[in-house]
């Protein structure tokens, strides 16, 4: 019990001594820790930044379809090498997805030969005919208004969702939705309602517009029938390939005379995440080099300082400081200092990584869902700084512990 009390007071006293030492030598400590602060800030930013970049890259990659994405194409003799978009295929796809209990499935077809008009402005956006699940499959969110729902097919006017490019070109913003626009298909002008707008800019120069297949069929198919379609499913990654095989077999059974293909086509199948790994490795490597340089400069300053403090160590030994206590106190000075420096480094990192302006400056693109600052990165930053403090504190602590009291007092 007595030895425990001695250990406890010894630990507290070492911390107090370390803090006192740092307080007295603020400027020296501050200058010697600049390197560590920058290194920890860089390292933490690299780890956290990689997480944010991963989010951004994931968002961008998933716009082409979230893993696992299975594309199904059905060809017949009339489809002229393009996957057919007729009602039989749509019906077969619907039946098969129900049979395989697929939650997210959508027909996707690109319509052509139409214009969108609003208050004297005329544009030619890409019109995508898709089911409501398309948004989930392609990670789309309505920034303003809402995304398409199955019930929108019953609306008295065609419901459409536009992207940011279209919204800007037509001068539509959050307050102007729902907005009425005109869609001109082969001379037939239909008044449509814009019910939502996404934040994406993935289409061509004039942006993208989405509409339900039933809506297109009802209002525009007579003038400009869809020529081709792809059928997409977002399914769990596990056994996705196996599902694709069984799905295409079932579709073939449903569609005699058609040639059906179903295959995975999400970014994981072509290694789209490799760039991300490289980014994290490069950023981590650079931060590691900065950390090494910062640590060496810290060690250098600590060694020089310790030589100037030999007399002080001797005086403390005359007070009854044991070798172990002197070693631990000097080590704690380094650990406390680097922990503080690491804390500041992590705060700088948080300020950088969670600032959308700075992020967009580096990443050059908006991010839909800002991920929280990764706790792991903050903890790693603090632990690394404590580790650096311990490593760079060992040598000066050994020098201090090996001081001969008699010689030290005479210095």
């Amino acid at each position, binding site marked *: 019990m*007595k030895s425990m*009390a*001695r250990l406890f*007071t010894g630990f*507290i*006293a070492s911390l*107090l*001594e370390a803090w*006192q030492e740092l307080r*007295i*030598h603020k400027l020296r400590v501050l200058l010697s820790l600049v390197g560590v602060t920058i290194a920890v800030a860089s390292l933490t930013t690299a780890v956290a930044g990689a997480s944010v970049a991963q989010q951004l890259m994931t968002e961008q990659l998933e716009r082409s379809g979230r893993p696992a994405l299975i594309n199904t194409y059905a060809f017949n003799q009339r489809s002229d090498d393009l996957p057919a978009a007729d009602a039989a295929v749509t019906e077969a796809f619907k039946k098969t997805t129900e049979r395989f209990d697929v939650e997210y499935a959508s027909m996707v077809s690109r319509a052509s030969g139409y214009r969108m008009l609003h208050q004297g402005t005329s544009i030619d956006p890409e019109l995508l005919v898709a089911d409501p699940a398309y948004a989930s499959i392609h990670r789309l969110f309505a920034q303003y208004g809402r995304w398409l729902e199955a019930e929108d097919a019953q609306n008295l006017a065609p419901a459409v969702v536009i992207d940011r490019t279209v919204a800007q070109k037509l001068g539509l913003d959050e307050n102007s939705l729902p907005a009425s626009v005109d869609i001109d298909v082969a001379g037939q002008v239909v008044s449509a309602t814009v019910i939502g707008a996404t934040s994406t800019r993935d289409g061509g120069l004039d942006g993208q517009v989405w509409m339900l297949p039933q809506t297109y069929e009802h209002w525009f198919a007579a003038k400009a029938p869809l020529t081709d379609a792809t059928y997409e499913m977002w399914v769990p990654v596990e056994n996705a390939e196996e599902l694709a095989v069984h799905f295409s077999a079932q579709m073939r059974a449903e569609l005699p005379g058609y040639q059906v293909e179903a295959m995975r086509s999400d970014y994981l199948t072509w290694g789209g995440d490799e760039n991300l790994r490289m980014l994290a490795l490069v950023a981590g490597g650079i931060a590691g080099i900065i950390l090494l340089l910062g640590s060496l400069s810290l060690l250098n300053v600590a060694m020089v300082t310790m030589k100037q403090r030999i*007399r*002080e160590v001797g*005086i*403390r*030994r*005359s*007070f*009854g*400081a*044991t*070798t*172990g*206590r002197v070693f631990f106190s000097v080590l704690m000075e380094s650990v406390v200092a680097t922990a503080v420096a690491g804390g500041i480094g992590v705060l700088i990192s948080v300020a950088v990584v969670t600032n959308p302006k700075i992020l967009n400056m580096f990443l050059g693109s908006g991010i839909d869902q800002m991920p929280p600052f990764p706790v792991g990165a903050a903890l790693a930053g603090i632990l690394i700084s404590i580790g650096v403090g311990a490593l760079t504190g060992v040598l000066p602590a050994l020098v201090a512990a090996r001081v001969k*009291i*008699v010689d030290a*007092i005479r210095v």
Partner: protein
Amino acid sequence: MRDTQLLKLESVTRSVLLPDDSELHILNGINLSVSEGDHIAIVGRSGTGKSTLLNILGLLDRPTTGHLAWRGIDATKLSARRAAHIRGRDLGFVFQQFNLLPGRTALENVMAPLMYATGADFWRRKTLATEALEKVGLGARLDSMPQTLSGGEQQRVAIARALVRRPRVVLADEPTGALDVATGRAVMELLDAATVESGAALITITHDINVAAMAREQFQLDEGTLKPLTLEVTS
């Protein structure tokens, strides 16, 4: 109480090996006994081994041969850790150059030894240090930095620091060496009074006969040998 023996040196020698492999004998067969309440002065010219003897008495150094006992225990066989604990708890040092810790206030300097204490002494270190400084007349200079204090005040801080853990023995190495005569005398009177009050033994190493005369026992260290000295007190 006066008979309680604290330190006993029997035939203590101390020699060091020089770079040319020859041996330098600093102390030769020192015999000395220190009991509670003693006030001993050891005089000698520079280079006669006074500081070496003080280091051995303060468990900072070990004899080459001979016997050194701390309260009946063979101190030559003490571990470094145990010696450090005894130093912290039972020995107080006053140095010629004061040896105050730079950058710390007078109060922080006096609190410094209590950082190595346990229990109430550790947790009440600020109160104890304040009381110690008040006893040496520096209650109004608690937050003063050493460089803003006069030599005499700095030595009084050093005395407060030496006494704050209520040691059994105070070892003073030329405590007036860096002070003028009047200040030196005042410091010695303070040191004497403080040790008398606490019951601690005081061993003063000095080359100043007048300082030595303030002790109750005097010894002369000459060429490494300790001999009793009788002084005619002059004022």
